[in-house]
């Protein structure tokens, strides 16, 4: 017996030294802490601890060393275990578990004849923990790793079943050493205390009974939570049909294993999610590349027309794109499409639409026919991808000013009618592509007169959402278009995009924003300068607007610098009064935005403002004659506006909106 113990102890000592570089010693009865134990020199830190402090503390940490003494030396007679190992930083966590367990295994077993078994167990378990660290390094797939762990654990514990339950709130799955399924694994996870320590059958049995789990009927059970950074990722446990067959050393082992496995699962999951996000990132790059490569390099120059386009650099690549091609007969064909879906699949469908459009455009000149052909060719792919595409195609006529328009379920195109100073919408002329292969599309002939503007855009524009959850809609777009005309196409796009930013406030862009404008140039002689703007309904923004208008003085067609300054200042003051009134009264503290434009004409300055606030109601109180000895504190705004402007009107528009019209004539000052 004694010799067995000696042999096992020697093996353990050798292995301890090989794996940790440390040492192991037993202090016999009557031994005092000495400089060297059994001929081995003790590290100074360990020696000092043994001399100066109680060697009975379970675990200590010294500079560069872990050491441990058995927690209950009395159980081993007067024998004490001292184990130490260099703590080089990388191994400290493992060393803590090893030394802890070693000490426990030595100290726990009271009866001398069980000492051998305890030492063998300790040997097995040390080997097990050593192997565990290797599993983590070699196996990257979580299921393989979990299966290795339960089999390894089954070899070192005396239990009929070893199990592991992992998953998340959407479902829990078990892995067992026997290969059998564990009944109701969720019941275990839901009832395990999250304190991070293993629990025995007595503690968890009542909860399992309540959950009607068959596991409540087992002879004995030990189960420990798997925790990684505080999150419960599962449980690990032992089962046996014999009653009370697990002891505190099993519990200690399970605690160590659970700690290691919890950290492993966390690490593997983190690695998996990192790989997944890298894959997505890569996919987005590819999709962005495809999307960018499909956009036309430039816009064609067409007599009498002005074209401008915009595609948002949205973070999540969507399926928006626009395209321009020349028909066989010389007309320019425009396409704006929105493929449902995101990422690579959407990008590939986008490329397909692009390819078919370019292939077919040379021998088909009718937008509806083109849509019909694209729909028929794309049908199988769209069906497979369970996707659909909305698209609008426009043929710009070369002979007369006008265009032919067809839309496959695309959001209504907008049309600014210069003569009526109003916005029209062109609804879809058929179903989205990919819905019905036999769908008949039709084309619509639309005149485009000087000053008119056609707006093709994606639903990212009209579905822009503010923090209150309201979408911009066609009405919101009308307001913007009212304010941006008659500015140049490029300038209009700038203000539309800015308006969407102001509307969303702090919300990020959810969808692609794509715009394609065709503006019929106004007739010659119209050399008006138009400054469209959008500002949030805030007082600080009013100040910026005033600054902008005052700086217009240089552009006014008035030769006298002093008069120019005067006109610009007067107009800025009137505008400031109107916009301040809008912010303070029309919006009544609500968030919102004000769209507008300032037009510099040959003989006057004009401003139009649009807001969605409450109607303007000039004070109805009777006019009191102004008394210089008792001036009123308020009410100077309207007096200023009326005194400064030649025309000041406010009318109510459909959809709860106000339109303010301000005119300041240059008359009275000399003209250029």
């Amino acid at each position, binding site marked *: 017996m004694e010799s067995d113990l000696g042999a096992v102890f020697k093996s353990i000592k050798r292995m301890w030294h090989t794996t940790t570089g440390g040492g192991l010693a037993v202090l016999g009865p009557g031994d005092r802490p000495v400089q060297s134990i059994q001929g081995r020199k003790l590290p100074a830190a360990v020696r000092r601890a043994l001399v100066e402090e109680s060697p009975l503390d379970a675990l200590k940490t010294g500079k560069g060393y872990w050491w441990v003494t058995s927690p209950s030396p009395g159980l081993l007679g007067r024998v004490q275990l001292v184990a130490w190992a260099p703590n080089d930083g990388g191994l400290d966590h493992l060393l803590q578990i090893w030394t802890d367990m070693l000490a426990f295994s030595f100290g726990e077993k009271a009866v001398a004849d069980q000492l051998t078994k305890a030492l063998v167990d300790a040997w097995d378990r040390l080997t097990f923990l050593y192997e565990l660290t290797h599993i983590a390094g070699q196996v990257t797939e979580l299921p393989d790793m979990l299966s290795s762990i339960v089999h390894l654990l089954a070899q070192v514990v005396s239990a009929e079943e070893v199990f592991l339950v992992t998953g998340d709130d959407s479902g829990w799955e078990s892995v067992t050493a026997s290969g059998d399924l564990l009944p109701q694994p969720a019941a275990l996870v839901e009832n395990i205390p999250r304190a991070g320590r293993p629990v025995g059958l007595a503690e968890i049995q009542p909860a399992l009974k309540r959950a009607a789990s068959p596991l409540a009927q087992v002879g004995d059970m030990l189960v420990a939570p798997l925790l990684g950074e505080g999150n419960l990722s599962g449980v690990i446990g032992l089962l046996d049909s014999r009653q009370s067959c697990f002891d505190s050393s099993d519990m200690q082992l399970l605690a160590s294993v659970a700690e290691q496995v919890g950290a492993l699962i966390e690490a593997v999951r983190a690695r998996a999610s990192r790989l997944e996000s890298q894959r997505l990132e890569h996919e987005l790059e590819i999709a962005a590349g495809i999307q960018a490569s499909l956009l036309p390099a430039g816009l064609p120059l067409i007599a009498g027309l002005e074209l401008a386009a915009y595609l948002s650099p949205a973070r999540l690549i969507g399926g928006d794109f626009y395209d321009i091609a020349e028909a066989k007969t010389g007309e320019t064909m425009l396409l704006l499409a929105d493929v449902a879906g995101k990422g690579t699949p959407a990008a590939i469908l986008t490329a397909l639409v692009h390819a078919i459009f370019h292939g077919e455009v040379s021998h088909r000149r009718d937008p509806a026919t083109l849509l019909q052909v694209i729909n028929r060719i794309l049908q199988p792919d769209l069906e497979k991808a369970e996707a659909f595409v909305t698209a609008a195609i426009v043929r710009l006529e070369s002979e007369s000013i006008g265009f032919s328009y067809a839309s496959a379920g695309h959001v209504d195109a907008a049309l600014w009618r210069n003569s009526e100073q109003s916005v029209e919408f062109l609804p879809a002329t058929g179903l989205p592509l990919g819905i019905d292969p036999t769908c008949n599309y039709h084309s619509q002939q639309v005149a485009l007169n000087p000053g008119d503007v056609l707006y093709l855009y994606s639903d990212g524009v009209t579905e822009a959402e503010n923090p209150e959850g309201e979408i911009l809609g066609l009405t919101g777009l009308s307001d913007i278009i009212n304010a941006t005309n008659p500015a140049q196409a490029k300038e209009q796009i700038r203000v539309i995009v800015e308006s969407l930013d102001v509307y969303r406030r702090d919300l990020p862009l959810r969808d692609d924003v794509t715009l394609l404008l065709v503006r019929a140039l106004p007739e010659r002689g119209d050399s008006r300068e138009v400054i469209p703007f959008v500002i949030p309904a805030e007082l600080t923004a009013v100040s910026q607007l005033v600054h902008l208008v*005052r700086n217009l003085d240089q552009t006014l067609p008035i030769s006298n610098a002093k008069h120019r300054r005067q006109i610009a200042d007067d107009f800025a003051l009137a505008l400031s009064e109107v916009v301040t009134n809008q912010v303070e009264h029309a919006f009544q503290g609500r968030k919102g935005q004000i769209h507008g434009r300032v037009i510099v004409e040959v003989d006057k300055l004009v401003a139009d403002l649009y807001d969605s606030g409450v109607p303007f109601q000039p004070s109805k109180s009777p006019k009191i004659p102004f008394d210089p000895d008792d001036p009123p*504190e308020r009410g100077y705004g309207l*007096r200023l506006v009326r*005194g400064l402007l030649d025309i000041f009107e406010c009318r109510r528009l459909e959809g709860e909106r106000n339109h303010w019209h301000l005119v300041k004539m240059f008359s009275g000052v000399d003209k250029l």
Partner: protein
Amino acid sequence: MKIEIEHPQPGRVIVRPQGRLDADTAQGLKEQLQEIAQAGPESVVVDMQAVDFIDSSGLSALVSGLKALRQHGGTLNLSKPQTQALTALRLTLLDRVFPIFPSVEEALSEGDLLAP
């Protein structure tokens, strides 16, 4: 907005608002004038030289300050308004309410508080 306050002699205060006097900034001037009024009878000169833009909110702040000062036996004169401010004062007839002077010195001497 920035407002400088100077006490050239007892009972006299020069207030120098700078920049824009509009709905966004006028409240500061209004509170400053109220504070001075409550401190005792003062002759206040608001030096308008550095005010490059004033709107109805700015005018309201001046009127409110004037009333508060008068209530406490004080006065409020304006000096050196720029063209823009002068236009605003004229259109609202407030040029008949505020004594307006071409310089701070003249505004100060004119504003001598006569001992009751």
